[in-house]
């Protein structure tokens, strides 16, 4: 069901809290792709798992990377965490995902309206655009703003049995991430491949 709620009716949440709530729900080695910067810092801080992938660049590609994982392993649930500024760089990917319509993909957009990590400058979309409405118009019919933390958890649960991809918009505060991902891309990739069950450690 699509829902294009006015963001002003949504509670301002916190990225680390929301990320922790998501991680707390994962019991089946679900994949989680964390976008650049604070999004993956908070994923790291929420507790490292081998099924987590942390981007250290390539801003905007959390959803495409997650789509690739979802297409490769249709029986594994895949979550992708992305910031609003990052998503603005790859709005076209929403239509690609809507076209391929993987049922095992849940996307979360952390929307604070600013590029927090570079000095909290407002994004060009902040005052005028609605990310969830953009997602709906891109063909992702199951796109919804989370009203509060409980609603976020409910939407996450709902997405796990959905018949198509789900996007959840979360309005968040302008706090920085609470951790810092260890910036070792080869280890991140190798551990993730172990977590995906496609490789054994040496």
């Amino acid at each position, binding site marked *: 069901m699509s829902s294009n709620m006015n963001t002003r009716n949504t509670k301002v949440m916190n990225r680390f809290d929301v990320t922790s709530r998501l991680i707390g729900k994962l019991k089946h080695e679900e*994949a989680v*792709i964390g976008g650049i910067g604070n999004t993956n810092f908070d994923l790291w801080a929420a507790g490292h798992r081998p099924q987590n*992938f942390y*981007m*250290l*660049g*390539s*801003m*905007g*590609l959390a*959803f*495409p*990377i*997650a*789509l*690739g*994982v*979802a*297409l*490769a*392993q249709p029986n*594994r649930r895949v979550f992708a965490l992305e910031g609003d500024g990052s998503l603005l760089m*790859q*709005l*076209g*990917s929403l*239509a*690609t995902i809507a*076209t*391929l319509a993987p049922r095992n993909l849940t996307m979360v957009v952390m929307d604070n309206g600013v590029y927090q990590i570079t000095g909290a400058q407002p994004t060009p979309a902040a005052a005028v655009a609605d990310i969830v409405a953009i997602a709906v118009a891109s063909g992702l019919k199951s796109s919804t703003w989370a009203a509060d933390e409980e609603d976020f958890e409910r939407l996450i649960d709902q997405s796990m049995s959905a018949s198509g991809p789900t996007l959840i918009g979360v309005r968040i505060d302008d706090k920085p991430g609470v951790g810092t991902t260890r910036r070792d*891309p*080869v280890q*991140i*990739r190798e551990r*993730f*491949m172990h977590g*995906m*069950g*496609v490789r054994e450690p040496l």
Partner: protein
Amino acid sequence: MAIAEQATQGSSDKSWHGIVLQTLKRNEISLIPYVPDRVLTPLIKNLHADPFFTTFATAREEEAVGIVSGAWMAGRRGAVLMQTSGFATLANVLASLAVPYQIPLIMFVSERGTLGEFNYGQSLVCRTMRPVLDSLALEHHTITRLDELEFIADRSIKQAVTTQAPVALILNPLLTGGKVFDK
């Protein structure tokens, strides 16, 4: 070897695009996101028609790179098809994802901008491609001959996978006929 084998196959298999398709299949590369190009059209059409492949357009080339990178890490092989001008958008994702994470990104680039280019912008953007590849020390081959295509493509794909390093296979107009001025 190749000559005798090809003689027994359909005529499309002897074309450059038939050889690329068969080489992808033989190397179990099944996920093919692309940004289209006129020269690539027969290849894209035949990939769409073959259920072995999941073939689809993306809005940008770096999106396609993200998709095949994710797929690789989850155990499925892919390759990205694009044009020269599309490659020119990839420096950031090559330098921040494919290379540092050691992902065997396989790229087929239809080369525009040379051997009869009619658009000045295309000829300029083409000149940025090999310097970008060389600046990251990425493996790349410019394929000009039909009789070398299978060897170069097959060996390069295998090398990318085994060395966990990207490769760019540049399909030159001498191989494909390129795009010529028609209006």
